[in-house]
Protein backbone atom coordinates (compact mmCIF):
# COMPACT_ATOMS: atom_id res chain seq x y z
CA UNK A 1 0.00 0.00 0.00
CA UNK A 2 1.46 3.33 -1.02
CA UNK A 3 1.71 6.42 1.14
CA UNK A 4 -1.02 8.03 -0.95
CA UNK A 5 -3.37 5.13 -0.42
CA UNK A 6 -2.57 5.11 3.31
CA UNK A 7 -3.29 8.82 3.42
CA UNK A 8 -6.60 8.25 1.65
CA UNK A 9 -7.49 5.49 4.11
CA UNK A 10 -6.69 7.71 7.05
CA UNK A 11 -8.80 10.54 5.63
CA UNK A 12 -11.63 8.12 5.06
CA UNK A 13 -11.34 6.67 8.55
CA UNK A 14 -11.19 10.12 10.06
CA UNK A 15 -14.39 11.01 8.22
CA UNK A 16 -16.01 7.75 9.30
CA UNK A 17 -15.10 8.45 12.89
CA UNK A 18 -17.18 11.58 12.88
CA UNK A 19 -20.18 9.62 11.65
CA UNK A 20 -20.23 7.05 14.49
CA UNK A 21 -23.63 6.94 16.09
CA UNK A 22 -24.31 5.45 19.53
CA UNK A 23 -25.84 2.07 18.79
CA UNK A 24 -28.97 0.81 20.45
CA UNK A 25 -28.96 -0.89 22.84
CA UNK A 26 -26.15 1.18 24.43
CA UNK A 27 -22.70 -0.39 24.38
CA UNK A 28 -21.13 -1.65 27.52
CA UNK A 29 -18.05 0.13 28.80
CA UNK A 30 -15.95 -2.81 27.69
CA UNK A 31 -17.33 -2.71 24.13
CA UNK A 32 -16.71 1.03 23.90
CA UNK A 33 -13.15 0.58 25.12
CA UNK A 34 -12.49 -2.20 22.60
CA UNK A 35 -13.91 -0.12 19.76
CA UNK A 36 -11.80 2.88 20.74
CA UNK A 37 -8.65 0.75 20.90
CA UNK A 38 -9.43 -0.76 17.51
CA UNK A 39 -9.92 2.67 15.95
CA UNK A 40 -6.68 4.00 17.46
CA UNK A 41 -4.78 0.98 16.13
CA UNK A 42 -6.34 1.47 12.73
CA UNK A 43 -5.39 5.13 12.62
CA UNK A 44 -1.84 4.51 13.82
CA UNK A 45 -1.06 1.62 11.49
CA UNK A 46 -3.03 2.58 8.39
CA UNK A 47 -4.24 -0.99 8.61
CA UNK A 48 -4.31 -2.74 5.21
CA UNK A 49 -7.10 -5.04 6.18
CA UNK A 50 -9.68 -2.27 5.94
CA UNK A 51 -11.37 -2.26 2.54
CA UNK A 52 -11.17 0.77 0.30
CA UNK A 53 -14.16 3.01 0.69
CA UNK A 54 -16.90 3.02 -1.90
CA UNK A 55 -17.95 6.40 -0.58
CA UNK A 56 -17.58 8.84 -3.45
CA UNK A 57 -17.32 11.75 -1.05
CA UNK A 58 -13.98 10.32 0.09
CA UNK A 59 -10.90 12.45 -0.13
CA UNK A 60 -9.19 12.29 -3.51
CA UNK A 61 -5.93 13.39 -5.02
CA UNK A 62 -5.16 12.89 -8.70
CA UNK A 63 -1.77 11.57 -9.72
CA UNK A 64 -1.30 14.83 -11.63
CA UNK A 65 -1.87 16.84 -8.42
CA UNK A 66 0.66 14.68 -6.59
CA UNK A 67 3.24 15.29 -9.27
CA UNK A 68 2.55 18.86 -10.36
CA UNK A 69 0.63 20.77 -7.67
CA UNK A 70 1.94 24.09 -9.00
CA UNK A 71 -0.10 23.78 -12.18
CA UNK A 72 -3.44 23.81 -10.38
CA UNK A 73 -3.57 27.48 -9.46
CA UNK A 74 -6.31 28.30 -11.97
CA UNK A 75 -4.43 30.41 -14.52
CA UNK A 76 -6.52 28.94 -17.34
CA UNK A 77 -10.19 29.70 -17.88
CA UNK A 78 -12.96 27.17 -17.61
CA UNK A 79 -13.89 25.79 -21.02
CA UNK A 80 -10.27 25.64 -22.23
CA UNK A 81 -8.28 22.44 -22.60
CA UNK A 82 -5.76 23.40 -19.92
CA UNK A 83 -8.33 25.02 -17.61
CA UNK A 84 -10.64 22.01 -17.64
CA UNK A 85 -7.77 19.54 -17.25
CA UNK A 86 -6.14 21.35 -14.33
CA UNK A 87 -9.54 21.83 -12.68
CA UNK A 88 -10.30 18.09 -12.84
CA UNK A 89 -6.79 17.32 -11.61
CA UNK A 90 -7.31 19.65 -8.63
CA UNK A 91 -10.48 17.86 -7.40
CA UNK A 92 -10.31 16.94 -3.75
CA UNK A 93 -13.21 14.53 -3.41
CA UNK A 94 -14.09 11.54 -5.55
CA UNK A 95 -17.54 12.82 -6.42
CA UNK A 96 -16.15 16.09 -7.75
CA UNK A 97 -13.28 14.31 -9.50
CA UNK A 98 -15.60 11.88 -11.21
CA UNK A 99 -17.86 14.65 -12.43
CA UNK A 100 -14.95 16.80 -13.69
CA UNK A 101 -12.95 14.03 -15.37
CA UNK A 102 -16.09 12.77 -17.10
CA UNK A 103 -16.95 16.27 -18.27
CA UNK A 104 -13.37 16.78 -19.44
CA UNK A 105 -13.49 13.63 -21.56
CA UNK A 106 -16.96 14.39 -22.85
CA UNK A 107 -15.87 17.90 -23.91
CA UNK A 108 -12.37 17.12 -25.15
CA UNK A 109 -12.32 13.54 -26.39
CA UNK A 110 -12.55 14.06 -30.11
CA UNK A 111 -15.68 12.56 -31.63
CA UNK A 112 -13.98 11.63 -34.86
CA UNK A 113 -10.90 10.39 -33.03
CA UNK A 114 -8.82 13.36 -34.21
CA UNK A 115 -6.64 15.48 -31.95
CA UNK A 116 -5.72 19.05 -32.73
CA UNK A 117 -2.20 19.04 -31.31
CA UNK A 118 0.21 17.25 -28.99
CA UNK A 119 -1.04 18.72 -25.71
CA UNK A 120 -4.63 17.83 -26.63
CA UNK A 121 -3.61 14.20 -27.17
CA UNK A 122 -1.50 14.11 -23.98
CA UNK A 123 -4.17 15.57 -21.71
CA UNK A 124 -6.94 13.34 -23.05
CA UNK A 125 -4.79 10.24 -22.63
CA UNK A 126 -3.82 11.33 -19.11
CA UNK A 127 -7.46 12.00 -18.19
CA UNK A 128 -8.49 8.54 -19.39
CA UNK A 129 -6.01 6.97 -16.99
CA UNK A 130 -7.01 9.24 -14.10
CA UNK A 131 -10.67 8.29 -14.43
CA UNK A 132 -9.73 4.63 -14.77
CA UNK A 133 -7.78 4.89 -11.50
CA UNK A 134 -10.69 6.67 -9.84
CA UNK A 135 -13.06 3.87 -10.85
CA UNK A 136 -10.66 1.25 -9.54
CA UNK A 137 -10.54 3.10 -6.22
CA UNK A 138 -14.31 3.33 -6.17
CA UNK A 139 -14.61 -0.41 -6.69
CA UNK A 140 -12.00 -1.19 -4.08
CA UNK A 141 -9.54 -2.55 -6.64
CA UNK A 142 -6.47 -1.08 -5.00
CA UNK A 143 -3.95 -3.12 -6.97
CA UNK A 144 -5.36 -2.02 -10.33
CA UNK A 145 -5.53 1.59 -9.11
CA UNK A 146 -1.88 1.40 -8.15
CA UNK A 147 -0.94 -0.09 -11.54
CA UNK A 148 -2.70 2.81 -13.26
CA UNK A 149 -0.88 5.28 -11.01
CA UNK A 150 2.39 3.68 -12.05
CA UNK A 151 1.51 4.06 -15.72
CA UNK A 152 0.83 7.76 -15.19
CA UNK A 153 4.07 8.22 -13.28
CA UNK A 154 5.92 6.49 -16.10
CA UNK A 155 4.38 8.86 -18.65
CA UNK A 156 5.46 11.77 -16.44
CA UNK A 157 8.98 10.34 -16.17
CA UNK A 158 9.15 9.96 -19.97
CA UNK A 159 8.24 13.62 -20.35
CA UNK A 160 11.13 14.81 -18.18
Amino acid at each position, binding site marked *: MTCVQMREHKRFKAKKQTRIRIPTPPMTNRTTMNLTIALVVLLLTGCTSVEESTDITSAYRSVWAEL*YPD*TLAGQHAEGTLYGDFYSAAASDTRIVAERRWEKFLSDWMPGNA*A*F*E*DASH*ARFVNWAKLEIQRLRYLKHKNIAAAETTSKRLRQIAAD*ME
Partner: protein
Amino acid sequence: MSASTKDIKKLAQAFLRDQGYYRGDIDGMWGTLSNRAFKRYSDYLSSLDLDIGGERPVAEDGVADAVSGIVVIDPGHGGNRKIGGSSPNNATSASGVLEKTMTLDLAKRVQKQLKALSSGIPGSGIKVHLTRSGDTNLGLSDRAQVAAKKDADVFVSIHFNGFNGSVRGTETLILSTEKGNVNEREDRELAQRIQSAMLAAIRRFDANARDRGVKNNRRLGVLSDISLGNTRGESKTRACLIEVEFIDTPAVDELLNTGPNANEVRNAVAEAIAEAIIDDLRANA
Protein backbone atom coordinates in the same frame (compact mmCIF):
# COMPACT_ATOMS: atom_id res chain seq x y z
CA MET B 1 51.58 38.26 -42.54
CA SER B 2 49.44 35.12 -42.63
CA ALA B 3 45.66 35.24 -42.25
CA SER B 4 44.13 34.02 -39.00
CA THR B 5 41.67 31.10 -38.92
CA LYS B 6 38.93 33.63 -38.28
CA ASP B 7 39.91 35.57 -41.43
CA ILE B 8 39.78 32.39 -43.48
CA LYS B 9 36.36 31.61 -42.08
CA LYS B 10 35.23 35.15 -42.97
CA LEU B 11 36.50 34.68 -46.52
CA ALA B 12 34.64 31.37 -46.78
CA GLN B 13 31.45 32.96 -45.44
CA ALA B 14 31.75 35.82 -47.94
CA PHE B 15 32.31 33.34 -50.79
CA LEU B 16 29.31 31.23 -49.76
CA ARG B 17 27.19 34.36 -49.52
CA ASP B 18 28.24 35.47 -53.00
CA GLN B 19 27.25 32.04 -54.27
CA GLY B 20 23.82 32.38 -52.71
CA TYR B 21 24.21 29.73 -50.01
CA TYR B 22 24.76 31.82 -46.88
CA ARG B 23 22.79 34.68 -45.37
CA GLY B 24 24.38 35.03 -41.96
CA ASP B 25 26.89 37.58 -40.72
CA ILE B 26 30.46 37.65 -42.09
CA ASP B 27 31.94 37.35 -38.62
CA GLY B 28 34.26 34.35 -38.76
CA MET B 29 32.03 32.48 -36.31
CA TRP B 30 31.48 29.08 -37.92
CA GLY B 31 28.10 27.91 -36.65
CA THR B 32 25.11 26.00 -37.94
CA LEU B 33 24.30 28.47 -40.72
CA SER B 34 27.86 28.34 -42.07
CA ASN B 35 27.97 24.57 -41.83
CA ARG B 36 24.67 24.22 -43.60
CA ALA B 37 25.72 26.63 -46.34
CA PHE B 38 29.02 24.79 -46.80
CA LYS B 39 27.24 21.44 -46.98
CA ARG B 40 24.85 22.71 -49.62
CA TYR B 41 27.70 24.10 -51.65
CA SER B 42 29.55 20.76 -51.32
CA ASP B 43 26.41 18.92 -52.40
CA TYR B 44 26.14 21.23 -55.36
CA LEU B 45 29.75 20.56 -56.35
CA SER B 46 29.30 16.82 -56.09
CA SER B 47 26.12 17.00 -58.16
CA LEU B 48 28.03 18.46 -61.14
CA ASP B 49 28.68 15.89 -63.83
CA LEU B 50 30.78 17.82 -66.32
CA ASP B 51 32.39 14.80 -68.03
CA ILE B 52 29.08 13.27 -69.02
CA GLY B 53 27.56 16.64 -69.78
CA GLY B 54 24.10 15.66 -68.58
CA GLU B 55 21.41 17.97 -67.28
CA ARG B 56 22.60 20.22 -64.54
CA PRO B 57 20.05 20.75 -61.80
CA VAL B 58 21.38 24.25 -61.20
CA ALA B 59 20.79 27.68 -62.61
CA GLU B 60 23.17 28.72 -65.37
CA ASP B 61 24.98 31.29 -63.28
CA GLY B 62 26.06 28.60 -60.87
CA VAL B 63 24.14 29.76 -57.80
CA ALA B 64 21.84 27.51 -55.80
CA ASP B 65 19.45 25.24 -57.65
CA ALA B 66 16.23 26.90 -58.64
CA VAL B 67 13.34 25.67 -56.58
CA SER B 68 9.61 25.94 -57.05
CA GLY B 69 6.59 24.77 -55.19
CA ILE B 70 3.47 25.67 -53.29
CA VAL B 71 3.64 25.85 -49.53
CA VAL B 72 0.75 26.23 -47.09
CA ILE B 73 1.61 27.27 -43.55
CA ASP B 74 -1.08 26.73 -40.92
CA PRO B 75 -0.88 28.84 -37.74
CA GLY B 76 -2.67 26.66 -35.18
CA HIS B 77 -5.76 27.88 -33.29
CA GLY B 78 -7.11 31.47 -33.54
CA GLY B 79 -10.26 33.46 -32.91
CA ASN B 80 -12.46 33.12 -29.84
CA ARG B 81 -14.47 29.97 -30.30
CA LYS B 82 -13.95 26.31 -31.07
CA ILE B 83 -14.65 25.36 -34.68
CA GLY B 84 -14.45 21.93 -36.28
CA GLY B 85 -12.18 20.45 -33.64
CA SER B 86 -9.90 23.50 -33.48
CA SER B 87 -9.76 25.37 -30.15
CA PRO B 88 -9.18 29.13 -30.18
CA ASN B 89 -6.16 28.53 -27.99
CA ASN B 90 -4.47 25.74 -26.07
CA ALA B 91 -1.09 26.52 -24.50
CA THR B 92 -0.27 29.81 -22.80
CA SER B 93 3.25 31.02 -22.11
CA ALA B 94 4.50 31.54 -18.59
CA SER B 95 4.10 35.31 -19.05
CA GLY B 96 0.65 34.97 -20.61
CA VAL B 97 1.35 35.02 -24.37
CA LEU B 98 -1.22 32.87 -26.14
CA GLU B 99 -0.21 29.97 -28.36
CA LYS B 100 -2.49 31.28 -31.14
CA THR B 101 -0.55 34.58 -31.17
CA MET B 102 2.78 32.80 -31.33
CA THR B 103 1.70 30.44 -34.13
CA LEU B 104 0.55 33.35 -36.29
CA ASP B 105 3.70 35.32 -35.62
CA LEU B 106 5.93 32.37 -36.55
CA ALA B 107 3.86 31.52 -39.63
CA LYS B 108 4.25 35.07 -40.96
CA ARG B 109 7.99 34.92 -40.33
CA VAL B 110 8.28 31.59 -42.16
CA GLN B 111 6.29 33.04 -45.06
CA LYS B 112 8.62 36.05 -45.19
CA GLN B 113 11.72 33.87 -45.06
CA LEU B 114 10.44 31.55 -47.79
CA LYS B 115 9.75 34.50 -50.07
CA ALA B 116 13.16 36.03 -49.32
CA LEU B 117 15.00 32.75 -49.91
CA SER B 118 13.04 32.06 -53.07
CA SER B 119 13.69 35.52 -54.51
CA GLY B 120 17.40 35.11 -53.79
CA ILE B 121 17.64 32.05 -56.01
CA PRO B 122 17.29 32.86 -59.73
CA GLY B 123 14.59 30.94 -61.51
CA SER B 124 12.82 30.01 -58.30
CA GLY B 125 9.16 30.43 -57.61
CA ILE B 126 7.76 29.44 -54.26
CA LYS B 127 4.18 30.41 -53.53
CA VAL B 128 3.35 30.63 -49.85
CA HIS B 129 -0.16 30.71 -48.41
CA LEU B 130 -1.32 30.95 -44.80
CA THR B 131 -4.51 29.24 -43.67
CA ARG B 132 -5.24 32.34 -41.61
CA SER B 133 -3.62 35.76 -41.55
CA GLY B 134 -5.52 37.26 -38.63
CA ASP B 135 -7.03 36.23 -35.31
CA THR B 136 -9.62 33.86 -36.74
CA ASN B 137 -10.22 30.15 -36.28
CA LEU B 138 -10.76 27.44 -38.91
CA GLY B 139 -11.81 23.84 -38.44
CA LEU B 140 -9.10 21.19 -38.66
CA SER B 141 -10.28 19.78 -41.97
CA ASP B 142 -10.80 23.29 -43.39
CA ARG B 143 -7.14 24.01 -42.69
CA ALA B 144 -6.04 20.90 -44.53
CA GLN B 145 -8.44 21.70 -47.36
CA VAL B 146 -6.64 24.99 -47.95
CA ALA B 147 -3.66 22.84 -48.92
CA ALA B 148 -5.85 20.76 -51.23
CA LYS B 149 -7.37 23.83 -52.88
CA LYS B 150 -3.98 25.46 -53.40
CA ASP B 151 -2.54 22.18 -54.71
CA ALA B 152 0.20 22.44 -52.08
CA ASP B 153 3.42 20.46 -52.16
CA VAL B 154 4.07 21.09 -48.48
CA PHE B 155 1.69 21.74 -45.59
CA VAL B 156 3.08 22.65 -42.17
CA SER B 157 0.84 23.22 -39.16
CA ILE B 158 2.52 25.29 -36.45
CA HIS B 159 1.82 24.75 -32.73
CA PHE B 160 3.48 25.35 -29.38
CA ASN B 161 3.35 22.88 -26.56
CA GLY B 162 2.48 23.01 -22.87
CA PHE B 163 2.52 20.47 -20.07
CA ASN B 164 3.57 21.06 -16.47
CA GLY B 165 5.48 24.33 -16.64
CA SER B 166 8.93 22.79 -16.60
CA VAL B 167 9.56 20.28 -19.40
CA ARG B 168 11.42 21.20 -22.58
CA GLY B 169 11.59 19.89 -26.10
CA THR B 170 10.85 20.23 -29.78
CA GLU B 171 8.77 17.62 -31.57
CA THR B 172 7.24 17.12 -34.99
CA LEU B 173 4.22 14.94 -35.61
CA ILE B 174 2.99 13.10 -38.67
CA LEU B 175 -0.01 10.89 -39.23
CA SER B 176 0.73 7.17 -39.13
CA THR B 177 -0.10 4.79 -41.95
CA GLU B 178 -2.56 2.94 -39.69
CA LYS B 179 -4.47 6.20 -39.35
CA GLY B 180 -4.83 6.56 -43.09
CA ASN B 181 -1.61 8.27 -44.12
CA VAL B 182 -0.90 7.31 -47.74
CA ASN B 183 2.51 8.98 -47.95
CA GLU B 184 4.06 8.46 -44.52
CA ARG B 185 7.61 8.09 -45.86
CA GLU B 186 7.52 11.48 -47.60
CA ASP B 187 5.85 13.11 -44.59
CA ARG B 188 8.53 11.67 -42.33
CA GLU B 189 11.31 13.04 -44.50
CA LEU B 190 9.75 16.50 -44.42
CA ALA B 191 9.18 16.24 -40.67
CA GLN B 192 12.76 15.13 -40.02
CA ARG B 193 14.17 18.01 -42.07
CA ILE B 194 12.10 20.56 -40.16
CA GLN B 195 12.71 18.94 -36.78
CA SER B 196 16.50 18.94 -37.24
CA ALA B 197 16.52 22.50 -38.54
CA MET B 198 14.33 23.88 -35.73
CA LEU B 199 16.36 22.13 -33.10
CA ALA B 200 19.66 23.43 -34.49
CA ALA B 201 18.25 26.96 -34.59
CA ILE B 202 17.05 26.82 -30.96
CA ARG B 203 20.33 25.25 -29.81
CA ARG B 204 22.24 28.22 -31.21
CA PHE B 205 20.61 30.28 -28.46
CA ASP B 206 19.93 27.71 -25.76
CA ALA B 207 21.92 24.58 -25.00
CA ASN B 208 18.96 23.12 -23.06
CA ALA B 209 16.95 22.57 -26.23
CA ARG B 210 15.78 18.97 -26.34
CA ASP B 211 15.07 16.74 -29.29
CA ARG B 212 11.78 14.88 -28.83
CA GLY B 213 11.99 13.64 -32.38
CA VAL B 214 9.47 12.89 -35.10
CA LYS B 215 6.42 10.99 -33.87
CA ASN B 216 3.90 9.25 -36.03
CA ASN B 217 1.31 7.80 -33.72
CA ARG B 218 -0.94 10.79 -33.26
CA ARG B 219 -4.44 10.99 -34.64
CA LEU B 220 -4.17 14.54 -35.86
CA GLY B 221 -7.18 15.92 -37.70
CA VAL B 222 -5.27 18.65 -39.50
CA LEU B 223 -3.05 16.04 -41.18
CA SER B 224 -5.89 13.96 -42.59
CA ASP B 225 -4.94 12.81 -46.08
CA ILE B 226 -8.58 12.86 -47.11
CA SER B 227 -8.76 16.58 -46.32
CA LEU B 228 -5.33 17.23 -47.81
CA GLY B 229 -6.51 15.62 -51.04
CA ASN B 230 -3.95 12.83 -50.94
CA THR B 231 -4.94 9.44 -52.27
CA ARG B 232 -2.87 6.31 -52.81
CA GLY B 233 -2.65 7.15 -56.49
CA GLU B 234 -2.01 10.87 -56.08
CA SER B 235 -0.33 11.99 -52.88
CA LYS B 236 1.21 15.31 -53.65
CA THR B 237 1.01 17.12 -50.33
CA ARG B 238 3.62 16.29 -47.72
CA ALA B 239 2.43 17.34 -44.28
CA CYS B 240 3.51 17.59 -40.67
CA LEU B 241 2.62 19.39 -37.45
CA ILE B 242 5.40 21.07 -35.51
CA GLU B 243 5.43 21.68 -31.75
CA VAL B 244 8.20 24.24 -31.45
CA GLU B 245 8.70 24.24 -27.66
CA PHE B 246 6.88 24.09 -24.31
CA ILE B 247 5.92 27.72 -23.83
CA ASP B 248 4.57 27.27 -20.29
CA THR B 249 8.16 26.69 -19.18
CA PRO B 250 9.60 30.06 -18.04
CA ALA B 251 12.98 29.50 -19.73
CA VAL B 252 11.23 28.95 -23.06
CA ASP B 253 9.01 31.97 -22.55
CA GLU B 254 12.12 34.05 -22.00
CA LEU B 255 13.77 32.53 -25.05
CA LEU B 256 10.85 33.14 -27.41
CA ASN B 257 8.89 36.03 -25.90
CA THR B 258 10.37 38.09 -23.13
CA GLY B 259 14.15 37.75 -23.40
CA PRO B 260 16.47 40.23 -25.16
CA ASN B 261 17.06 37.86 -28.10
CA ALA B 262 13.46 36.72 -28.53
CA ASN B 263 13.02 38.41 -31.91
CA GLU B 264 16.29 36.97 -33.18
CA VAL B 265 15.40 33.49 -31.93
CA ARG B 266 12.00 33.57 -33.62
CA ASN B 267 13.62 34.71 -36.87
CA ALA B 268 16.22 31.96 -36.63
CA VAL B 269 13.52 29.32 -36.08
CA ALA B 270 11.51 30.71 -38.99
CA GLU B 271 14.55 30.72 -41.25
CA ALA B 272 15.39 27.16 -40.24
CA ILE B 273 11.85 25.99 -41.05
CA ALA B 274 11.91 27.84 -44.39
CA GLU B 275 15.27 26.31 -45.33
CA ALA B 276 14.06 22.84 -44.43
CA ILE B 277 10.95 23.32 -46.58
CA ILE B 278 13.11 24.45 -49.50
CA ASP B 279 15.33 21.39 -49.04
CA ASP B 280 12.23 19.24 -49.13
CA LEU B 281 10.92 20.93 -52.27
CA ARG B 282 14.30 20.35 -53.94
CA ALA B 283 14.43 16.72 -52.87
CA ASN B 284 10.99 16.09 -54.30
CA ALA B 285 11.34 18.17 -57.49
